[in-house]
C-alpha cells in the first residue's frame, strides 16, 4: 500500500515536471508545477515529515505559485487585435533543446552513478510514526535559534527590497 502510494506520487511529480519541460504554454506549465508540488508534498508525508508536507503545500502552492502566476499575468504582451473568444495562450519559445537535454540527461546519469556506487551506512533506526512538530519546535528554539532569527531578518529584507523594486515600474524620464 505504502509502496503503491510512493510510486504513484513519484510518477505524478516526474510526469508533471516532464510536462513543464515539453509544453509551450506557460500557464499550463504553472498548473503542472502545482501538481508537481502536490506530489512532492505527498512524498514528504510518506517519508514521515508531516509538518513539512503541510508547509510545502501552504508556502509553495499558496504563495510561490500564486506569485508566479501573477508574474505571468503582469508580463504579458497585450494584443489589442486578439480575438477575445480565443483561449489565451502564452507562447514560450524553446531554444537550446539539444544543450538542455544533453546537460539534463548527462547530469541525471552522473547522479545515478553516484547513488548506485555509494554505500549508505545508516546510523540510527528509521523514523517512528509519531508527529514531528514537537521535535521541530524544540530544535528551532534551541540549537537552530540563530538560523531561525536570520531567516526572519532575511524575510524582512526581501519584503522591503521587493517593494522598493516593484514600485515605479515605469519611471518617467
Amino acid at each position, binding site marked *: 500500500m505504502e509502496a503503491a502510494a510512493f510510486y504513484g506520487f513519484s510518477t505524478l511529480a516526474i510526469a508533471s*515536471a516532464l510536462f513543464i519541460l515539453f509544453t509551450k504554454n506557460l500557464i499550463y506549465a504553472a498548473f503542472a508545477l502545482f501538481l508537481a508540488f502536490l506530489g512532492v508534498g505527498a512524498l514528504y508525508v510518506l517519508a514521515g515529515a508531516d509538518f513539512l508536507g503541510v508547509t510545502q503545500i501552504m508556502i509553495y502552492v499558496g504563495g510561490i505559485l500564486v506569485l508566479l502566476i501573477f*508574474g505571468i499575468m503582469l508580463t504579458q504582451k497585450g494584443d489589442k487585435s486578439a480575438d477575445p473568444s480565443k483561449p489565451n495562450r502564452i507562447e514560450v519559445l524553446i531554444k537550446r533543446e539539444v544543450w538542455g537535454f544533453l546537460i539534463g540527461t548527462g547530469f*541525471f546519469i552522473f547522479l545515478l552513478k553516484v547513488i548506485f556506487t555509494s554505500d549508505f551506512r545508516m546510523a540510527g533506526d528509521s*523514523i517512528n510514526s509519531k508527529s514531528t512538530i514537537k521535535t521541530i519546535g524544540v530544535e528551532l528554539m534551541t540549537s537552530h535559534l540563530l538560523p531561525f532569527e536570520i531567516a526572519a531578518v532575511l524575510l524582512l529584507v526581501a519584503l522591503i527590497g521587493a517593494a522598493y523594486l516593484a514600485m515605479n515600474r515605469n519611471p518617467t524620464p
Partner: protein
Amino acid sequence: MTSIPIQHYLIVGAALFSIGLAIAITKRHFIGILLGIELMLNAVNINLVAFSRHDPERLGGQLFALFVIVVAAAEVTVALAIILRVYGRFKTVDPDKVSELKK
C-alpha cells in the same frame, strides 16, 4: 518501519533535479526559468527529508528543508520584482533579447 529504500527517494530527487535543470536551460522566458529553479529546490528538499528519516531525534534534514523553503520564498519575491523592472525597461521577457549592445 518504512519499506521504501532510501535510494528510490534519491532517484526521484535526481530525476526532478535534472528535469528542472533542463527547464531552466531550455525555456526562453524569465518565469519559465524560475519554474525550473523552484523544481530544483524541491528535488533537493526531497533528498534532505529522505535522509532525515534516519535521524528521528534531531531532524536536521527537515529543519534544513524548512530553511530552504523560506529562502526560496524570499528569492521568488525579489526575482519577480526584478523581472517586472526588466520588463518595464526592455518590454520583453526573453533573456536573449535583454541587451543594450549593438548586434
